[in-house]
C-alpha cells in the first residue's frame, strides 16, 4: 500500500489508497435442509489521485501490480472532475467498537445448529412451509492512507441470520421472513423465529381490502420497503447540490410531521453499519436529518461538501468507484404509541409489513407504489387476516407530513435502518 502511494505521489499532486479485504463464511439451507457452505475471500485496492487539479481513479484486486494501477488512474485523470477537496490529515477517530473477537471461534457446526433450530421452529408451527435460511459470519478489514499523511484502519465483524418461508396452497403463495445482524455472534435464533411465527399467525385468515383511501400502519419492515428509498435520495447531498432533491432548499422548514425525527448514525457500537471513519478517512459523526419535523442536514462526502461549500458529514462511501455520499444507518426516533394502541385506534385499515416494488417509481419525487406482499387488514381495532392482490400508492412527503402516531417499539431492519412502526392516516389502496 505504501508503495502504491509512493508511486502515485510521483505521478500526481495528491492521492489516497483505500484497501478492503474480507473473509466470509456462509451456511445456507434450501427447502428446509442444509445445502451449501461457502467461504469467500476478497481483497481490492482503490487508488484516487489528483493530477493537474483533476480526479483520476483505478481499482484492482491485484495488490502486487501497483504501477498498472497508477497508470490507469493517471489516464482517467485527464477527463476527471476538478478536485475541490483536500484530503484529511492525520486525525483522531471516535472509539466505536465494531469488532468482536468471539466471531473467530464460531464454528460451522454452531452456524448449522442455529439454522436447524430456526427451521424446526417454523416448520413445527406450520407444516408444509418451505424455508430458506442463511447464517453468515464475516470479518472485514479497511485501511486508508493518503498523501496528506492521513491514515485510518479498522476491523469489523458481522454476523447475520435470516429466514424466508413460502407457504403454497393451490396457487396462493404466502411469503414470510425475518433477518437480523450484529457485530456480535448470535447464540440463539429464538427472537427471529418468534417474529416469523407471529407473521404466520396473523396471515392465517384471508381478508379483503376495499378500493379507497385507508389508514395504514407501516411496521419497521414496511417502513424500510416503502418509505426509506425516497428519503435516502432526498437527503443525499449530491441530489441537493444538483437541485434534484425536493427538500434541498428547505433546511429549517417543517416538511414532516413534528413527531418525526430521523438521524444518520454510524456511531452506535457493534452495529454492522457503524465505523470509526468513512471510506475517505473522515471521522464518523451522528447527523440529524429531520428534527421534530424540520429538515436539519444533508449527507456529504469530501468532494460534494466542497462543491456545496460545507463540510463532509463523514458519509463518503465507496462501492467500487469514487466515494459518493451515502447513508450509514438511518435511525427514526421512537414515539409513544404501542402497536396495539395503533391497531385498536383503527376502524378500518391496513398494516403493511412488505411492499413489493415500491422502490421502482419516481423515487426522487417521493412517489411510491407497490403490491402488498405481506400485510394485514384491521377492522374495528382488530387484525382480521392477510390481504392480497392489493396495491398501495402514496407520496412520502404527503404521507409523512401528517402522521397519526409514531410507535414506541423500534427495531433494526436489514442493518441499515432502525425504526418504530409509523401510523399514517390515509393512503390510496387499489384492490381486486
Amino acid at each position, binding site marked *: 500500500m505504501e508503495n502504491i502511494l509512493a508511486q502515485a505521489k510521483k505521478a500526481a499532486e495528491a492521492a489516497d489508497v483505500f484497501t478492503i479485504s474480507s473473509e466470509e463464511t456462509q451456511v445456507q439451507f*434450501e427447502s428446509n435442509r442444509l445445502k451449501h457452505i461457502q467461504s469467500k475471500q476478497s481483497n481490492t485496492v482503490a487508488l484516487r489521485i489528483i493530477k493537474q487539479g483533476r480526479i483520476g*481513479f483505478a481499482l*484492482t484486486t491485484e495488490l502486487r501490480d501497483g504501477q498498472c494501477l497508477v497508470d490507469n488512474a493517471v489516464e482517467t485523470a485527464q477527463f476527471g472532475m476538478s478536485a475541490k477537496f483536500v484530503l484529511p490529515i492525520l486525525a483522531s477517530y471516535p472509539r466505536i467498537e465494531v469488532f468482536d473477537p468471539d466471531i473467530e471461534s464460531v464454528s460451522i457446526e454452531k452456524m448449522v445448529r442455529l439454522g436447524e433450530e430456526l427451521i424446526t421452529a417454523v416448520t413445527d408451527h406450520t407444516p408444509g412451509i418451505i424455508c430458506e435460511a442463511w447464517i453468515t459470519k464475516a470479518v472485514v478489514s479497511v485501511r486508508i492512507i493518503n498523501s496528506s499523511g492521513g491514515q485510518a484502519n479498522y476491523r469489523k465483524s458481522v454476523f447475520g441470520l435470516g429466514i424466508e418461508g413460502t407457504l403454497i396452497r393451490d396457487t396462493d403463495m404466502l411469503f414470510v421472513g425475518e433477518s437480523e445482524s450484529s457485530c456480535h455472534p448470535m447464540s440463539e435464533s429464538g427472537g427471529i423465529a418468534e417474529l416469523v411465527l407471529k407473521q404466520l399467525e396473523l396471515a392465517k385468515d384471508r381478508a379483503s381490502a376495499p378500493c379507497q383511501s385507508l389508514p395504514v400502519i407501516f411496521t419497521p419492515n414496511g417502513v424500510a420497503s416503502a418509505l426509506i428509498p425516497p428519503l435516502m435520495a432526498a437527503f443525499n447531498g449530491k441530489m441537493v447540490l444538483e*437541485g434534484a432533491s425536493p427538500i434541498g432548499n428547505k433546511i429549517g422548514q417543517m416538511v414532516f410531521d413534528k413527531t418525526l425525527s430521523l438521524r444518520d448514525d454510524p456511531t452506535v457500537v457493534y452495529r454492522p453499519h457503524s465505523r470509526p471513519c468513512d471510506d475517505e478517512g473522515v471521522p464518523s459523526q451522528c447527523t440529524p436529518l429531520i428534527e421534530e419535523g424540520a429538515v436539519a442536514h444533508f449527507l456529504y462526502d469530501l468532494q460534494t461538501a466542497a462543491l456545496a461549500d460545507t463540510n463532509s458529514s463523514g458519509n463518503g462511501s465507496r462501492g467500487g468507484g469514487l466515494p459518493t455520499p451515502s447513508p450509514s444507518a438511518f435511525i427514526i426516533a421512537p414515539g409513544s404509541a404501542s402497536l396495539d394502541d395503533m391497531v385498536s385506534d383503527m376502524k378500518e385499515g391496513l398494516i403493511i409489513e412488505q411492499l413489493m416494488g415500491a422502490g421502482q417509481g419516481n423515487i426522487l419525487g417521493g412517489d411510491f407504489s407497490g403490491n402488498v406482499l405481506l400485510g394485514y387488514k384491521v377492522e374495528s381495532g382488530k387484525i382480521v387476516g392477510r390481504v392480497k392482490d392489493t396495491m398501495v400508492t402514496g407520496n412520502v412527503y404527503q404521507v409523512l407530513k401528517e402522521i397519526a402516531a409514531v410507535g414506541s417499539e423500534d427495531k433494526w431492519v436489514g442493518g441499515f435502518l432502525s425504526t418504530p412502526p409509523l401510523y399514517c392516516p390515509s393512503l390510496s389502496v*387499489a384492490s381486486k
Partner: protein
Amino acid sequence: MTDNIEATGRYLSEIIKKGCNADYIEAHLEESQTSYIAYRGRELESVGRRTAIGGNVRALVKGGWGFVSFNNLDELPNKVELAINQAGYAGNEASQLAPAESVFDIVPAESSDNPVSIPLAEKKQVLDEYNEIIWRTPRIQTSIINYGDGHKKSIFTSSSGSYIEQERMDISLRLVAIATDGTEVQQAGESLGSRGDFGFMQGIHHKVEEVAQRAVELLSAPQAKGGEYTVVLDPVLAGVFVHEAFGHLSESDFVYENDRMREIMTLGKVFGGPELNIVDTATTPGLRGSSKYDDEGMPATKTYLIREGKLVGRLHSRETAAKMKENPTGNARAISYRYPPIVRMTNTYIEAGSASFEEMIGDIKEGVYARKWYGGMTSMEMFTFAAGEAYMIRNGKLAEPLRPVMLTGNVFTTLENIDAIGDDLDMNQGGGCGKGGQMPLPVSNGSPHIRIRRCLVGGK
C-alpha cells in the same frame, strides 16, 4: 498482470482431477478489465478503470455443495480441499447431476474490437453530445449518464474432464433526464446494451432527445386513477413482464424441491391462449444473454417455456434437471467468480403474433398504454413492474399522457388475460437481472406489443 490465468487454469484442472473425495468438482477463473464514465449533471463526475483476477472452486459431496471464492491465487490445493470438506459437511443424500459431455473448447469474443481499449477521450466525446442534448431541453434540472464496458476472459474446468475458455465483451449505457417545474420532479430514462460493439452507442441522438422531452412532459401529466384496466404494453415493457412474471417462475431451482410448486408448474398445463409462445435462448448471436456454454460448462440451448399456451419446458442447472428427470438446458449462470452458478434466464421473449397496434387499441373504450420501464419485481405468484411512460387509451385512440404507472397482478391470471399479441417483436438489450444477491446479470428480453385484460394499475 501476474502469471497468465491459462497456466493457473491448467494447474487447477490437474488438482481437480485428483480430488477423489468428491462426487463432482469444478473451478472457475476470471480475468477482467472494465472502464466506466459517469455524468451527473453537466459535469463528468467520475471516470475509472478496474482490473480483477479471481476464481472459485465448487464441490459436490452427497448432495451438499461447498464453494470457495478468492482473489488470492496462492495455495489452490488447499482451496480445493476446503470446498470438498464443506460439501462433505453439508451433504446428506445422494448427489444427482444431469450427465455432461466432456468438452474442450476455446471460444473467442463475438466482437473483435475490445471496447475497453477504445480511448476514453473517444467515448467521452459521444457521451458529451448526449449530455448536451439533455441539457439544452428547457426545464431539465439535471441528467445522469452511466456508461460501462468490460472485457472478460473466463476459464471453466471440471472433474468431468471439461476445459473451456470463453471471452466476452459487454457494453451498457443508461441515460436519465430529470425535469422540474419548481415543485414537481419527474424523470425519464433509456437503457441500451451490446456485446462489445461501440457503434451501437453512437448515433442515438434522437433517442436522447426523446428521453429529455418525456421527462418534461411528465411534469404536467396527471396520475392514473387506480383500478383495473385493459392495458397495452409496448415491446420493452412486455419484455420486462415476460421476464418478471413468467421467466422467474420457469427457473427450476424454485420448483424442484417444492412439491406444491411442481404441481403448479406441471408440464402440459394451460397458462395462456393458443397464440402465446414464450422462449428462452442463449443461442442467438449478438444478444447480451447469449453464450456458447453456461457456467457449468453445458452448451446453450433454445428452450420453449410455453408453446401455444401450454407449459412445455423450464430452465435447468445440471442438478435441477437430474432431480426433475428432465433434459438440462444450460441455464446455470453466475455474475462473477464470487458467486456459484444458479438457474438464470438468458434471452427471454414472447414470439410474434399477428395483431397490429391499431387493432389492439381499436376496441378499447378506456384503457392504459404503458411503455418503457423503471424496473420490475416478482414474488413468483405476484409481480409488479413500473412503466416509464403511460397514456390513457380512450375510444380506441391514444389520449392524454399519465405519470409513470405501476402495474401489478397475479402471474397465472394475467397470462390467461393476454388476449392479443402483436406482430412487432423487439428485443431490449438494456436489462440486468438480479436474483439471490447476484446483480446485474446481462440478459435481454423482448416481446411484441401485447394486450392484457383486467390488469391492476396503481394510482390515486
